[in-house]
C-alpha cells in the first residue's frame, strides 16, 4: 500500500472527517460574525473590542483559526495533488500554502492576544 506523506492525517478517512468537523466550526464562526456585523449597524470600537476581549470569543476565534489551518491544508492539498503532476512544482506549491497558513495562524494569535 502506498501511503501519502503530505496529506494531513496520513489517511483519507481521517482527512475526510477533519475536513467536515473543521467545516462545521468555520461555518458556525462565519454565521456568528455575519450575525454580529449585520445586527450591529452602528458598530463602535468600544463594542467591537469588548467582544474580542472576552475569553470565550478569543477561544472561539482561536478554534476557527485552528480549523482554518486544517481545512485549508486539506483543501489545498487535494487541489494541488489533483492538478500539479510535477512533483517539484507540487512540493513548492504545497510548501508555499503551508508557509502562508503558518503565517496566518501566528498573525491571528498575535491579533487576538496582542503580543
Amino acid at each position, binding site marked *: 500500500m502506498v501511503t501519502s506523506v503530505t496529506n494531513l492525517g496520513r489517511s483519507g478517512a481521517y482527512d475526510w472527517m477533519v475536513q*467536515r468537523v473543521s*467545516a*462545521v466550526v468555520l*461555518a458556525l464562526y*462565519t454565521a456568528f460574525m455575519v450575525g454580529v456585523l*449585520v445586527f450591529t449597524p452602528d458598530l463602535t*470600537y468600544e463594542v*467591537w*473590542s469588548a467582544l*474580542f476581549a472576552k475569553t470565550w470569543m478569543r477561544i472561539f476565534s482561536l478554534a476557527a483559526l485552528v480549523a*482554518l489551518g486544517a481545512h*485549508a491544508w486539506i*483543501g*489545498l492539498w487535494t*487541489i494541488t495533488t489533483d492538478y500539479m503532476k510535477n512533483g517539484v512544482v507540487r512540493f513548492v506549491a504545497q510548501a508555499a*500554502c503551508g508557509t*502562508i497558513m503558518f503565517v*496566518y495562524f501566528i*498573525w*491571528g494569535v498575535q*491579533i487576538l492576544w*496582542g503580543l
Partner: protein
Amino acid sequence: MAIIECEAVNSKRPVNLDLTKFHFPLPAITSILHRISGVIIFIAIAFLLWGLDASLASKESFASLQSVMDSFLAKLILWGILAALFYHFVAGIKHLIMDAGFGETLKGGQIAAKVVIAVSVVLILLAGVWIW
C-alpha cells in the same frame, strides 16, 4: 479486431481535448466553483486578518479602517470576498447534507446543484446590498 474497435470509437469524435468544447453538467460547475472559491478565501484571509488587526489595534486604526471601507474599491474587494465565502459556505452545507445520506442520486445531485446556485446568488446579492 482492435483496429476496427478503435475506428468505431474514434469516429465523429473530436481528437482534441478542447475544454471550451465540453458541456459540463451543473454539478460539475458547482464543484469546481467550490474549489475556486476555496482558493479565493485562502488568499482573502490576508485581507480579513489585516482588517481584524486594524479594527482591534486602537480606536484610531478602527476609524481609519472605516474610512478605507468607504472607498468603492475596498467595498468591491469585500463583496468579492463575501461572494466566495458565501458560495463556499452554501456548497459546503450541501456536502454535509449529502454526506448525511440525503439526495445521493443523479437527480438529487442535479437539484442540489441548482439549489446551491440559487441560494448563493441570493446571499451574494444581499451581501452587496448590505455593503452599499
